[in-house]
């Protein structure tokens, strides 16, 4: 059989192997607006995601103002508070993190890192962005319809999400569901691109196991998203029908304000299962690209190969697989069968094994490395700490018996913000500081970067560490105002004030970061094409920022993996992936093929 395949490959002429037909823009509208170049689409995705993310950030300030200083701000009432909670959660998880990691970094990095000229379906890739933008616009419009945005909480649990008394029942929830459905359609178009590009459009010599871990992370995350988002899609459509047509997929018989509703026998639990069948893989859809990016940045800035590359790849795949059988750990308080809970607690604890493996490998990569404490590296080290913190509280909450008392407290808020909010955001910052020189041809300002890093890193710990304590003493989450409660000491009020003040300070640092980006685009120090002396292909392009088609006339040929740092016997401390072996300068100024080196040199 293998012989047949070999013969087949030998006769396949280049043109049949999807040498991407490069689309050339002839008008500024097709060059900058309706553009099919993945790099432009990436920047469009990133800018939109960051913009809507800023809205999410402002919403978090509003929530904290209310929690820190209740009854001070007249414009925040209970209804608007729940709208802030809902929109903050949905915006941050889906419209910021998912869109930025996959639509933003995925689009920019996949073709460049695997040595392709563009995505394999550029037109669909462009459509993907415009549908995403439409989803964002529909979501934003929901703030301005009568009744305002939905206040159902970001999980949109029925029956409450579409019952009288919940804010946004008139238009907000409808627009939210439409926006989610649009987002998923748009994402699917992009996701097909990312998967097929990685599978089919790699440069010569770029075997799967020579791909940088960033690509592995985005690749597996995209597969997860393609398999998990349909659950949200189905749930969203069914809830939309419940709300608009009065069907009873999820809506049980209820008496609202003394009257029977027209719904009968729907299953709210069914929604929870569908939602979390999407919702838990979603955590890893955000985390896996972050894992990949961290691996690459740590290796580059510590001038050392990543420790245990194969294990890192397998761990990414294993985490991706396991993430589909842990979803019900979000539902321990839904009244499930104890055996069911036992199963999900077990799988949840098992998923900690490949995750811990990754953390050990990052630390071992740093061990005895030539560590450069550049801004991207600082953010990555901060990520490792934060991820360990958030991960360990996840082990607490993964156990049914611990989760039940803690489930409705601020402990959960602290946990998931550490592991799914702060940790991926730190990686996004690391990635922006790392790849900004490639994307713009200029460096970000180092001093402002230091300010941004330290305020963000220390600030987020000052925000979320005390929140664990608040949770332990029983301060509930989701409450607009606690008022006088016997078991909650007055010190918690002071602590809440402190957290709110810190939130505002950290928020200010993000404004500085945005300013740094905008100013650096125009006035930043010019960057050369490979400022970090990195090995992967995106740093070896002829132009910076890379031109249309990425690699000039000839596609690169890959001779080694992406982690050839500090190789013994080699003059430079890095060897680019596409440098032919006979051009590698050996110490003593002789050149010779690295391929003839005894294997132990490359361990």
């Amino acid at each position, binding site marked *: 059989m293998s012989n047949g395949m070999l013969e087949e490959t030998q006769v396949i002429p280049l043109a049949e192997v999807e040498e991407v037909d490069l689309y050339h823009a002839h008008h500024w509208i097709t060059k900058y607006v309706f553009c099919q170049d993945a790099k432009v689409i990436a920047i469009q995705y990133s800018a939109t995601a960051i913009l809507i993310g800023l809205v999410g950030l402002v919403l978090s300030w509003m929530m904290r103002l209310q929690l820190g200083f209740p009854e001070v701000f007249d414009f925040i009432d209970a209804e608007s508070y729940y709208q802030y909670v809902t929109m903050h959660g949905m915006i941050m998880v889906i419209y910021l993190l998912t869109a930025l990691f996959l639509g933003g970094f995925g689009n920019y990095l996949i073709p460049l890192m695997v040595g392709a000229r563009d995505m394999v*379906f550029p037109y669909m890739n462009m459509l993907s962005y415009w549908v995403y933008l439409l989803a964002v616009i529909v979501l934003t419009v929901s703030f301005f319809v009568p009744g305002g945005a939905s206040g159902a909480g970001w999980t949109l649990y029925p029956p409450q999400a579409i019952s009288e008394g919940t804010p946004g029942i008139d238009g907000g929830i409808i627009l939210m569901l439409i926006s989610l459905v649009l987002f998923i359609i748009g994402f699917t178009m992009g996701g097909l691109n990312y998967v097929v590009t990685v599978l089919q459009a790699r440069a*010569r010599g770029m075997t799967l196991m020579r791909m940088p871990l960033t690509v592995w992370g985005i690749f597996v995350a995209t597969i997860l998203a393609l398999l998990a988002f349909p659950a949200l899609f*189905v749930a969203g459509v069914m809830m939309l029908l419940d709300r608009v*047509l009065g069907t009873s997929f999820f809506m049980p018989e209820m008496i609202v304000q003394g009257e029977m509703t027209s719904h009968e026998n729907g*299953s709210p639990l069914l929604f929870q299962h569908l939602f979390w069948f999407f919702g838990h893989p979603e955590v890893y859809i955000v985390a896996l690209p972050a894992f990949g990016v961290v691996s690459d940045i740590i290796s580059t800035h510590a001038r050392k*190969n990543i420790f245990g590359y194969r294990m890192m790849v397998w761990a990414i795949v294993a985490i991706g697989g396991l993430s589909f059988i842990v979803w019900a750990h979000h539902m321990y308080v839904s009244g499930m069968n104890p055996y069911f809970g036992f199963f999900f607690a077990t799988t949840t604890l098992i998923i900690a094994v490949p995750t811990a493996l990754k953390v050990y490998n990052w630390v071992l990569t740093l061990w005895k490395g030539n560590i450069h404490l550049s801004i991207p590296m600082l953010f990555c080290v901060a990520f490792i700490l934060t991820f360990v913190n958030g991960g360990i509280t996840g082990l607490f909450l993964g156990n049914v018996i611990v989760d039940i008392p803690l489930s409705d407290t601020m402990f959960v808020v602290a946990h998931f913000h550490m592991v799914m909010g702060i940790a991926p955001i730190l990686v996004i910052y690391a990635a922006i500081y790392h790849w900004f020189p490639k994307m713009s041809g200029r460096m970000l300002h180092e001093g402002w970067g230091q300010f941004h890093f330290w305020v963000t890193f220390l600030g987020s710990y000052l925000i979320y560490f005390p929140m664990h304590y608040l949770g332990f003493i029983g301060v509930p989450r989701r409450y607009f105002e606690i008022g006088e409660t016997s078991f909650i000491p007055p010190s918690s009020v002071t602590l809440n004030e402190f957290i709110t003040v810190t939130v505002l300070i950290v928020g200010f640092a993000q404004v500085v970061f945005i300013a740094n980006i905008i100013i650096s685009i125009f006035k930043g120090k010019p960057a050369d094409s490979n400022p970090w002396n990195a090995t992967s292909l995106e740093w070896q392009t002829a132009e910076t920022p890379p031109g249309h088609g990425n690699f000039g006339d000839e596609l690169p040929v890959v001779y080694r*993996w992406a982690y050839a740092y500090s190789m013994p016997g080699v003059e430079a401390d890095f060897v680019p992936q596409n440098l032919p072996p006979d051009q590698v300068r050996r110490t003593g100024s002789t050149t010779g093929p690295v391929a003839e080196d005894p294997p132990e040199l490359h361990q």
Partner: protein
Amino acid sequence: MNLFHEMTKKPWLVDPTEASSVREVGAFFLPAGKVGLRVFLVVVTVVFTLITIAYADRMLFANWLPMQEPWVLWLNTAFLIASSVAMQWAHNGTRQNNLNGVRDGLIWGGVLTFAFLTGQLYVWQQLVDLGYYANTNTANAFFYLLTAAHGLHMAGGLVAWWRSFARMRRGASVADLRLSVELCTTYWHYLLLIWLVLFALFLVS
């Protein structure tokens, strides 16, 4: 590609044969369009599987009143099977370099699919006239949801079909049509399979 073999490679050991031995092909010896369609069909499968699971789960609840399937559904099923056969006919035409076969197959495939969709709408109309509203019973709601989801996928297929058809009318050669006709055919067969499973589900519930 042997995935296990690929993923157990040790990339830090330099293999002198590697760079020269990797050919200019992706993981599969297939055009990107075919790989893309297969990935998409996996996504479609997940969507229909999840709705089916929800259907099966919801059947167990009290107050589930399965509806009578109108006989027109059998006719529609026949249309869909015939459209799939017609698409296969067009596909065979591309293999045998027979432009007339491609044209006839495509035209019949499109017409029969259109007949299927019209028939589905007629079934809806009939059911509404009989008082089977979506909000009177969840069995009805699931019927409308599943037929709508399948119908929309068929309609999406017709967009791709229209592009191949328009290309043919502009005088494209059989070789130029080969890939798009093959992709359409695969899609038609797969959606027929999904419909048969759904129809069986309606019949047994």
